[in-house]
């Protein structure tokens, strides 16, 4: 799993590389999770009531995708800088597993329900609540890496 690599050496010998990667990681998750949760709040019926959920999804999807790409790339750089430490961290495993579930969920069930005009409000709310819960879990999983 790329435990010994030239990239890690470069990252650790350039003192600003790690915080710089983090300064991309944080705005990127604000962009991706923020746009996803906006759709969730619409599905829950508590924000932007005048907007059709399918249209909102379509409007936000490019931003979500850009955010996720930057989040994953910057996250990978962070991971490479000290792989052994992350691989021994229970919260890191939790975060990555929930992240994978959240991404898959976002592009399958979540996308389908948000785009579909014939979904019952109850189902829409449930799907949105699960989405919110998943992404909040990813954020907390990330924070707790430093606290386990």
């Amino acid at each position, binding site marked *: 799993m790329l435990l010994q690599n030239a990239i890690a050496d470069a990252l650790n010998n350039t003192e600003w590389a790690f*915080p710089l990667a*983090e*300064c991309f990681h*944080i*705005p990127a*998750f*604000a*962009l991706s*999770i*923020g*746009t*996803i*949760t*906006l759709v969730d*709040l619409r599905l829950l019926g*508590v*924000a*932007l*009531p*005048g*907007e059709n959920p399918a*249209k*909102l999804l379509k*409007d*936000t999807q490019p*931003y979500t995708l850009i955010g996720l790409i930057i989040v994953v790339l910057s996250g990978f750089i962070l991971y490479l800088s000290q792989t052994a430490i992350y691989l021994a961290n229970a919260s890191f495993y939790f975060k990555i597993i929930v992240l994978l579930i959240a991404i898959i969920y976002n592009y399958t069930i979540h996308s389908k329900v948000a785009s579909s005009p014939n979904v019952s409000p109850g189902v829409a709310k449930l799907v949105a609540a699960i989405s919110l819960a998943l*992404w*909040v879990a990813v*954020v*907390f999983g*990330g*924070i*707790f890496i*430093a*606290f386990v």
Partner: protein
Amino acid sequence: MTISESIQSIDFLTAIRESALVYPIILGTHLTCIAVFGGMILMTDLRLLGFCLKNLTITEVVTSLRPWKRVGGVVMITCGLLLGSSEAVKYAPNPYFWTKMVVLTCIGIHALVFRPLVYNNTEALDSSPVIPTSAKAAAWLSMFLWLSMACLGRLIAYYEPRQAVQALLLIK
């Protein structure tokens, strides 16, 4: 005792600082707010620039998200106050923290300046054929200031005063 020592020695702040789970949960809540409300702020700014959500009027976007942003702001600031004051001694000499506070002040000034021009003036923006420069300036500045907040917040953890202390000890 210095001011920062007397602040952070308040019982519940000490409890937060020495806690097992409370501190990281407050931190996680602070970060979750960045994720959820940062996204809203960004979408409002992008709408002001005319980049997205174009089938909604600026009025709809701004007024609909306003209560959420207020809630988010309150939670963010509460978490920030708890985190910062529980670590007052460490934060007092921290240049990233103080820069972040300056940026937060700028955000407050931004709100005051642009409220009459833009945020309370959305009907005028909607009826204008072209989005006025003031609205666009508000949006760009907002995104820049909030981005700075996020980065500075992360950088707070990077300040290591020991080298400065050691240098001072050498001079002594």
